[in-house]
């Protein structure tokens, strides 16, 4: 088996598996480029959990507070985040992906499997059949090893590329979500009154809310540590 065939097989698998995701990534970058989105160097991605819970809190107070754009952006971010998480988790399952998704689609392995099945289906395997079965198994094992070495490197590289790109897209969109969330929230009288009760003014934003929240959560809990980390984004 020559290496070009193996590389072609890996490439075809990439196209089938990642093609649609790369289209989504390209569309997102194109959209953000066309609108000249501001690319922040701060880690807004980290604040995703906090902002998600704020969206939920505000919705609980006033379920009509969010503009149509904010709701769409929230849905968009959640979809992209699910995709990001799926690929992030995929990095832990390289072996499984190779065995379950990649190998069954490769011609040479299909042929080996068919021949093995043909031998197994025989009522009686003679000595030649058993020898041939051994050869097939050895051949399959060796081929798997070669294929895996190509597959693993390429697969990890593609996943890194995808998760990195999704993270960049999410970082920018979360930054916009952050800004839009507080702007919509402060237009709601009910939310504004609830903030006022906490002695927060209309200039409230994530940073000020986190500062307030840090003062009221139990120190050194997971929540506290997380909020401290979030606060560093804004300072």
């Amino acid at each position: 088996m020559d290496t070009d065939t193996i590389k072609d097989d890996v490439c075809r698998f990439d196209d089938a598996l990642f093609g649609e995701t790369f289209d989504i990534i390209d569309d997102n970058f194109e959209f953000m480029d066309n609108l000249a989105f501001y690319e922040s160097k701060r880690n807004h991605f980290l604040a995703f959990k906090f902002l998600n819970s704020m969206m939920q809190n505000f919705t609980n107070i006033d379920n009509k507070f969010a503009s149509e754009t904010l709701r769409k952006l929230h849905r968009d971010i959640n979809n992209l985040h699910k995709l990001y998480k799926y690929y992030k988790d995929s990095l832990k399952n390289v072996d499984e992906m190779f065995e379950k998704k990649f190998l069954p689609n490769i011609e040479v392995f299909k042929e080996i499997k068919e021949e093995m099945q043909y031998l197994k289906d025989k009522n009686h395997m003679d000595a030649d059949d058993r020898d041939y079965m051994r050869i097939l198994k050895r051949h399959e094992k060796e081929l798997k090893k070669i294929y895996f070495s190509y597959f693993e490197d390429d697969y990890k590289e593609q996943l890194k590329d995808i998760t990195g790109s999704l993270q960049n897209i999410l970082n920018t969109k979360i930054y916009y979500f952050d800004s839009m969330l507080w702007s919509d929230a402060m237009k709601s009288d009910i939310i504004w009154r609830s903030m006022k009760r906490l002695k927060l003014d209309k200039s409230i934003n994530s940073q000020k809310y986190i500062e307030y929240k840090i003062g009221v959560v139990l120190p050194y809990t997971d929540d506290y540590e997380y909020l401290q980390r979030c606060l560093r984004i804004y300072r």
Partner: protein
Amino acid sequence: MIQQVVYDEDDIERFLEVTKQIEAQDEESQTLRKILNVQNKISILANIEPSDLKAILFNLKFIKYKRKDIIIEEGDVSQEIFFILSGECQVFVKKRDVGTLNSGMTFGESAAIFKSKRNATVACLSNEATLLSFSINHDNMEFCANALANIYKNLALQINNKLEEMNSKMTTKK
């Protein structure tokens, strides 16, 4: 695979609006980060918590002046504080030259703190001078009681230093 969200014209308008806001905020916060680097050189801002500083300072600008440019004029009502990053400035009271200010020095703080009229005119003396100007957000002061106390303390120290300097000059003349 995920379903992509489609944005319409209204959404796009909203995104453009947010971009403008973010750019304006970021420009200010970059300047603020620069001020934090020189905070302790600006005597009236010494020992103030960075978070308080962010809350009470606004309108931060780096401005370049050329020789003879008037920076503030006696009797004017304006409330910026100036910190000289480079160059020299000359101080006039009733058109009389009363002294020179060098890099690392601050002026304009009295009018800013006491909301009074400018008590001197300051002009650029060197060929070029770079100044950092900023204003104090008095509305936020009530949430930053320690910062307010420190500013007054720093200001008192500064006035005291100026008085001592004047006394020592007068003693030398005698």
